[in-house]
């Protein structure tokens, strides 16, 4: 605990202090998940519409997911150098399988009767997508996002191998100097970040799903 409580480790002017590493870890995660969503969403919409695409797309994404993170990052060094990009590219690749599968499942799970109701009310195709399908699918999509965020936070802690700072740097430094306090501090902070992000998204998921349970219950 000594390491966590030492004020010098919280000095933001030191590059590898706790707040700076925390922010670095957070930005690696946020950028990767955001880019991952931007790529996965259109793919999932396409796959949900053209079903024969589902098998090849998910097979490809799961092969990507099989490639060990440390190996993928190391192979990227000659192309992208010892930069954050080297960490972000594999992280984005890993988000795809869970995001695509989950978004497709969420869209397919929307009750066709409700889409029919929308059509009967005179909604356009775009209105049905944005006002019926998306709001109903969103809580399920957020549930998948939780898995992706927690996994990404975990894998991002490997970034020190390619010289990119993150909270994993604490674990690695502690390991190198046989300083257990620093390892434990890193472990606590990474786990806290993962659990915190998970709870935050759980809150969002509940908030978005609030109206739904009652509508569905009264409809059923």
């Amino acid at each position, binding site marked *: 605990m000594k390491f966590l409580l030492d004020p010098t480790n919280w000095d933001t002017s030191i590059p590898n202090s706790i707040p700076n590493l925390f922010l670095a870890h957070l930005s690696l995660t946020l950028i990767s998940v955001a880019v991952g969503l931007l790529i996965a969403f259109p793919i999932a919409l396409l796959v949900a519409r053209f079903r024969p695409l589902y098998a090849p797309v998910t097979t490809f994404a799961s092969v990507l997911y099989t490639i060990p993170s440390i190996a993928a990052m190391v192979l990227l060094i000659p192309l992208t150098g010892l930069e954050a990009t080297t960490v972000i590219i594999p992280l984005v690749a890993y988000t795809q399988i869970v995001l695509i599968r989950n978004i497709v499942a969420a869209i397919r799970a929307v009750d066709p009767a409700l889409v029919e109701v929308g059509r009967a009310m005179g909604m356009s195709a775009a209105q049905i997508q944005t006002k019926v399908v998306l709001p109903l699918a969103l809580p399920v999509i957020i549930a998948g996002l939780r*898995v992706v965020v927690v996994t990404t936070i975990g894998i991002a802690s490997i970034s020190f191998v390619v010289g990119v700072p993150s909270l994993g740097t604490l674990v690695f430094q502690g390991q190198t100097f046989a300083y257990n306090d620093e390892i434990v501090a890193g472990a606590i902070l990474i786990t806290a970040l993962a659990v915190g992000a*998970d709870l935050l998204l759980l809150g969002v998921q509940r908030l978005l799903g609030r109206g739904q349970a009652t509508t569905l219950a009264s409809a059923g």
Partner: protein
Amino acid sequence: MFYGSLSTALAASSNFLGQVWAFIQNPANAYGEHLWVTILLSVYPIVLAFVIALPLGILTARRPIAAFLSANLSGLARAIPSLVFLAIMVPIIGIGFTPSIIALTLLGIPPILLNTIAGLQGIDPAAIDAARGMGMTRLQILGRVEIPLVLPVIAAGVRIAAIQIVATTPIAALIGAGGLGEYILAGVNILDYAQAAAGALGIIALALLTEALFALLQRVLTPAGIRAGEKASEKLAA
């Protein structure tokens, strides 16, 4: 102009691949031995995790503790990155090959345990009733209904565990496990990217091979009836 830079890039990358290949072939680097250590680092933990998690799952599936395990273990296993897990284990088990085996085994237990519990709990009681109605003995029900229904789910768990273990072997090099991960760490340290890539490509090959092998195993263990049913429901959905 464009083709000029393209051919330079191609020449550079083929040159790089040449360096990687030269590194792998150089007997002084003992690539084969490192590969073998990595294979052992994967096989022992997969087998051990299976031998430990399967009975544990069978014993707990019908008890209240199963619900507790299912609810908490999976979340915990996901929230703690394997790097952190290995680092925390060092003060307890030390560093080297055997401690790495222990750590990797512990890493592989949750998916197998959880899938065993899920598989056993997921057996439709109606299927057992039907078997009993057909006059099967208790042993026949176990052998012909319960085990065939559970095996694919357990195989899926073993597949997840195996992939995770293989993917973590290079990280275990940090705690002195040896194997291909040493090339990765050393290569990045001394900026010898051909060496790092040689380790990385070996690990990727092992991971893909493991995935293919266990995907096949899972397929073989899935009874033809269930496979046909899945196909039919897929068609229905489409």
